[in-house]
């Protein structure tokens, strides 16, 4: 039997990392990720993990050290937020292209400037093309569960890609919740051992990482990455099921909340999904067929599965906690709307940008969205493609 604890998102991320017990953990602190590293360094000091912790001078170095460690056959993890992720940007692409299954909690925070330390998804959404798997978490329990599963997913032989598990800055990272923790031994058994078939330290089978790769082979290597990403979906499903067997909590590519026969659907990722669920429950009591599609895997994007659950809705609203300046809408909106393009009968899809820089979003705002969806479903007309929730106009 595991145990039930009261932990914040950062604390539970550290707890998962203690149980994962990575061989190497290079990290640099940044708000609101700091508590993860702080708590983990306490585990190191107390001898509760056998991890080699490297106190690097920047996030650029943190990810570089992860690459060196992972290429040498070590299980490597780090953690970061916003500007920290921006500083390791270059190296994130390299980690993915070398096919190193590094796993990292990313505490979602707005990218500067003007400087802001609160939650939005501009950091992870910006990194969506870096080749990393992205799993979004709704609450502290999911942070824990996602991190443990991410190890298995990333290290899976047909995948070998790095993975980030996101948690909303402060909203999840600093809020204490009830979390169910598995036995150390159970986690150990579940994740197994990382075995890099091409370890830099294997002197009998020498290997070169990172040679020059020009127009003759670079394209082929990118094609391999595309192929690997295409295989991730099945692995996420398989690992999610197996995780359910040991924890009682199974996972899928996404969560279908009251989607059976739902007419009005909101699509959201992260902690806001929890707020949407409350509104869905209230509306269902009043007989309104409201539903929520909660995004868990954003990379890879589960197009087929999403189309199946959305195509019969009457109106869909996508909530984006980040902006793609100059684009038709937020990143999630662009993907969802494009996914539905092939369907002959498809619902109108609108977009709401919300919560930038930690701007609160409450039940009232979500209710407005469902009201608007009702109007769109009735009139079959989309008045405004992109709206802003909680913004002073």
């Amino acid at each position, binding site marked *: 039997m595991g145990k039930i604890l009261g932990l914040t998102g950062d604390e539970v991320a550290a707890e998962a990392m203690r149980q994962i017990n990575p061989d190497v953990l290079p990290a640099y602190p940044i708000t609101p990720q700091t508590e993860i590293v702080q708590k983990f360094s306490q585990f190191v000091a107390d001898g509760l993990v056998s991890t080699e912790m490297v106190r690097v001078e920047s996030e650029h170095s943190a990810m570089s050290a992860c690459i060196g460690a992972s290429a040498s056959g070590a299980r490597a993890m780090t953690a970061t937020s916003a500007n920290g992720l921006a500083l390791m940007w270059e190296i994130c692409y390299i980690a993915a*292209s*070398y*096919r*190193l299954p590094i796993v990292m909690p990313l505490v979602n925070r707005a990218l500067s400037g003007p400087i802001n330390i609160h939650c939005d998804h501009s950091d992870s959404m910006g990194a969506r093309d870096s080749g990393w798997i992205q799993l979004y978490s709704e609450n502290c329990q999911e942070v824990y569960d996602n991190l443990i599963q991410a190890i298995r997913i990333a290290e899976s032989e047909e995948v*070998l890609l790095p993975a980030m598990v996101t948690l909303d800055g402060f909203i999840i990272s600093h809020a204490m919740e009830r979390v169910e923790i598995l036995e150390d031994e159970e986690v150990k058994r579940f994740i197994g051992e990382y075995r890099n078939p*091409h370890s830099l330290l294997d002197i009998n*089978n*020498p*290997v*070169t*990482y*990172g*040679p020059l*790769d020009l127009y*003759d*082979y*670079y*394209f*082929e*290597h990118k*094609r*391999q990455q595309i*192929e690997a990403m295409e295989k991730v979906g099945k692995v996420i499903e398989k690992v999610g099921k197996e995780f359910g067997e040991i924890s009682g909590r199974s996972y899928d590519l996404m969560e279908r909340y009251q989607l059976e026969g739902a007419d009005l659907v909101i699509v959201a990722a992260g902690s806001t999904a929890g707020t949407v669920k409350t509104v869905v429950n209230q509306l269902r009591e009043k007989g309104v067929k409201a539903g929520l599609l909660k995004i868990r895997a954003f990379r890879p994007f589960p197009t087929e599965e999403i189309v199946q659950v959305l195509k019969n809705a009457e109106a869909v609203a996508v909530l984006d906690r980040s902006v793609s300046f100059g684009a038709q809408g937020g990143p999630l909106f662009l993907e969802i709307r494009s996914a539905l393009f092939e369907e002959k009968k498809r619902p109108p899809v609108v977009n709401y940008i919300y919560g930038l820089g930690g701007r609160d979003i409450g039940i009232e705002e979500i209710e407005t969205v469902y009201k608007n969806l009702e109007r769109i479903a009735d009139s079959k007309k989309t008045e405004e493609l992109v709206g802003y929730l909680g913004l002073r106009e």
Partner: protein
Amino acid sequence: MKEKNWKEIPLGGLILEAGNAEEYETGSWRTYRPIRNEEKCTHCLLCWVYCPDSSIIVEEAKIKEFDYGHCKGCGICSAQCPVNAIEMVEETKFNSKKEGGE
């Protein structure tokens, strides 16, 4: 050489064989060619130590020759030779292609 498709190559751009950089002849990159003056040379081997391309061939503790197939003509050997025994000569002064590169 027929180039391979994406299913035939190791993942992540890895090279799974050791020492095959030698197969890549970098001598054609050269614009200046190092020429050693046998009379001045004291066989101190400093050039051999410094050459970043391992292009100075030594036999029985004596400089034998340059490996022009790989020497990129960086001039480091010439710059550090304590007795100025290595002169860098423009490649256009040589018309033969057989020594080094394509």
